[in-house]
């Protein structure tokens, strides 16, 4: 198991604002006692990041998304080591190069050649390494003819090309990119992207902050969504980006509404006798609903093998998800998907009609979609269900995340998620008493649930 390239644990960053009226006093005491830090009492603080934790595996591409002011750049500076976290710890393995501002530190009066040398050394290259990569830098920047001209005569495009070329040739193990690709012309952007792809192929770790969500879905393995300095979402790029887009489109209000809807659904999902003890889902999996609603999931029922609505199942039973769908206008691009999640957000199973090669033709008006999960071999626990109707490219029509749940009850307290059909057998000198045969709870087994659970004994 390789060590993660970046580990952030409970990282918080507070910016302090010092009141100016105290400056004279602090200067005096600072000079007299040298206790500058103690006397610089912050008048107010601003929390840029709060309790952010994540790990980036080596060789993966990790994106940080979020609105302006959400703490993305602060996070990047922390990872780069430019500033230190106020609380928590941050560890980065290997050489880091940060593309936070291209050509920071270029001196306008001197030539591109000298600026390359100085910039490369600032970024941590030794003179020998510089000599080796100098030609490659100039070539990448396409500035062979201008390299001896003062940098102030460069166009802003040339300036950035040179800055990017230097930073990328530092040959870091971890590359940090802050929205630098948003600037520059088409050709340059493509070139940068090619270079970044090459980095990925070579197994380097990349962390980047961007507003370009298409890029995130295309290039990243993992996404962190920051909102006002807190982790709002984390995980699979497509899903997090969808959530983020819905959030941005609908704003906070919509998400809150869907959350209360989720709570309502939760309450409804749990029969009065069945207290929803661990229905809350920690770990980044938050119930919610989003999508354009061009196709709407109007009703969801969880049925047993006799088509009775149930929320409590025993291992091995058949669970049927019955969806009533409504499309206001006919659509021809649609996919139905289902996901099962354990209470901690672990994905148990997921599939959709596209994955299983169903070709959508038409969807109009009321429609029924049923998925039967036969032999639900799961251990005891509460499971959340994701239900979705979306386009084939992933654009959601209606995504119901964790708004429905069911519970598996079992006499046997085995652990994990999946319970394979199994039985024990013993021989030789092993003597065990068979477990006492008991009815599997007071649920009526629907389809003669073979519920092999703990029945195995020495035969």
């Amino acid at each position, binding site marked *: 198991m390789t060590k993660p390239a970046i580990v952030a644990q409970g990282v918080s960053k507070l910016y302090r604002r010092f009141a100016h009226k105290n*400056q004279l006093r*602090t200067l005096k005491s*600072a000079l007299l006692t040298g206790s500058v830090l103690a006397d610089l009492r912050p008048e107010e603080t601003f929390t840029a990041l709060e309790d952010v934790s994540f790990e980036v595996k080596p060789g993966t591409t990790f994106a940080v998304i979020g609105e302006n002011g959400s703490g993305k750049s602060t996070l990047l500076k922390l990872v780069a080591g430019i*500033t230190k976290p106020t609380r928590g710890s941050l560890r980065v393995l290997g050489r880091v190069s940060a593309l936070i501002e291209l050509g920071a*530190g270029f001196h306008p009066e001197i030539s591109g050649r000298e600026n390359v*040398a100085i910039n490369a050394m600032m*970024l*941590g290259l030794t003179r020998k390494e510089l000599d080796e990569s100098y030609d490659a830098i100039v070539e990448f920047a396409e500035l062979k003819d201008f390299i001896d001209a003062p940098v102030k005569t460069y166009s802003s495009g040339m300036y950035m090309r040179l800055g990017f070329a230097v930073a990328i040739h530092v040959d870091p193990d971890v590359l940090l990119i802050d929205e630098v690709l948003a600037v520059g012309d088409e050709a340059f952007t493509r070139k940068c992207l090619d270079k970044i792809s090459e980095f990925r192929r070579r197994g380097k770790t990349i962390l980047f902050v961007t507003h370009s969500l298409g890029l995130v879905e295309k290039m990243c393995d993992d996404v962190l969504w920051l909102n006002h300095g807190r982790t709002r979402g984390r995980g699979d790029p497509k899903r997090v980006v969808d959530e983020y887009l819905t959030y941005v489109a609908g704003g906070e209000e919509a998400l809150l509404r869907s959350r209360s809807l989720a709570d309502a659904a939760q309450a409804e999902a749990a029969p009065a006798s069945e207290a929803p003890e661990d229905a809350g889902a920690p770990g980044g999996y938050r119930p919610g609903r989003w999508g354009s609603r061009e196709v709407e999931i109007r009703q969801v029922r969880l049925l047993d093998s006799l088509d009775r609505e149930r929320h409590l199942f025993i291992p091995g039973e058949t669970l049927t998800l019955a969806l009533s769908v409504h499309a206001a206008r006919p659509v021809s691009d649609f996919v139905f998907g289902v996901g099962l999640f354990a209470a901690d957000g672990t994905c148990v199973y997921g599939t959709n009609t596209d994955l299983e090669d169903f070709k959508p033709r038409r969807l109009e008006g009321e429609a029924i979609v049923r998925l039967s999960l036969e032999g639900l071999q799961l251990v005891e626990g509460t499971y959340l269900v994701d239900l979705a109707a979306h386009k084939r490219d992933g654009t959601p029509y209606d995504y119901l995340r964790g708004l429905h749940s069911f519970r598996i009850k079992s006499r046997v307290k085995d652990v994990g998620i999946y319970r394979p059909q199994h039985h024990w057998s013993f021989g030789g000198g092993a003597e065990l008493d068979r477990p006492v045969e008991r009815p599997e709870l007071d649920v009526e087994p629907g389809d003669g649930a073979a519920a092999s659970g703990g029945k195995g004994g020495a035969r």
Partner: protein
Amino acid sequence: MIAAIRSLVRFRALVESLVSRELKARYRGSVLGFLWSFVNPLLLLLTYTLVFTVILPNRQPEIQPFFLFLFCGILPWTWFQASLSESSGVLIANANLIKKVLFPAEVLPTVCVLANLAHFLLGLPILLLFLAWQGTLAWTAVLLPLPIVVQLVLTLGLSLFLSALTVHFRDIQNILQHVLHLWFFATPVIYSYAAIAEGTPLRQALRLNPMTHVIVTYQQMLFHGNVDHWRGLFLALLVGMLAFAAGAFLFDRLRDTLPEEV
């Protein structure tokens, strides 16, 4: 303090390039270009010579020809004064670097001091030439590296101290100009230290100024040709080392606050 030195040694290639960039960039685009390094001290010398030989003539016999005596003090003083006033603003001027690049910030004030040292060393041949022309150049000139080292340590220490502190207290930049002005007159550059009687309060005050001893040593080595100010120079070295330790300590303490405050 050891850590500060080690960090500066580790980044010496960067410091070197930055110093040479500083020297190249300063006069690029001007007509005289590099010659300004020589012309600047000459013009300064001309001004002071005009003042102190024509307007307020100084006729103390032991410091004649006066313009040469003046030159011996003004050249190192310019190094000292320019280093401090530049380094007090250097972190703010390079905020971009400190905020956006993982960068050893102590390199910046160091570069200020070293670039001005280079100007000083470039001006030195002119001074030696004048001394040779007047026939007063003595063998003691070969001892010059000693006061230069003492002054370097002292200046570096003060530069580190001021550069970090100015980030938090911007007023320093303004106050400093006047402090340096006063400091100039409190250092025997335009008058002779020897001419001030022993035991007077003025002499006592001048003795507390480390730059007094540095400048007096320069004057003795270059102008008078006999050196007996060793004790003073040694004291100045001690003060310089103390200043360096304090500067390095303060800079280190404030390091993490720099990217947020510049």
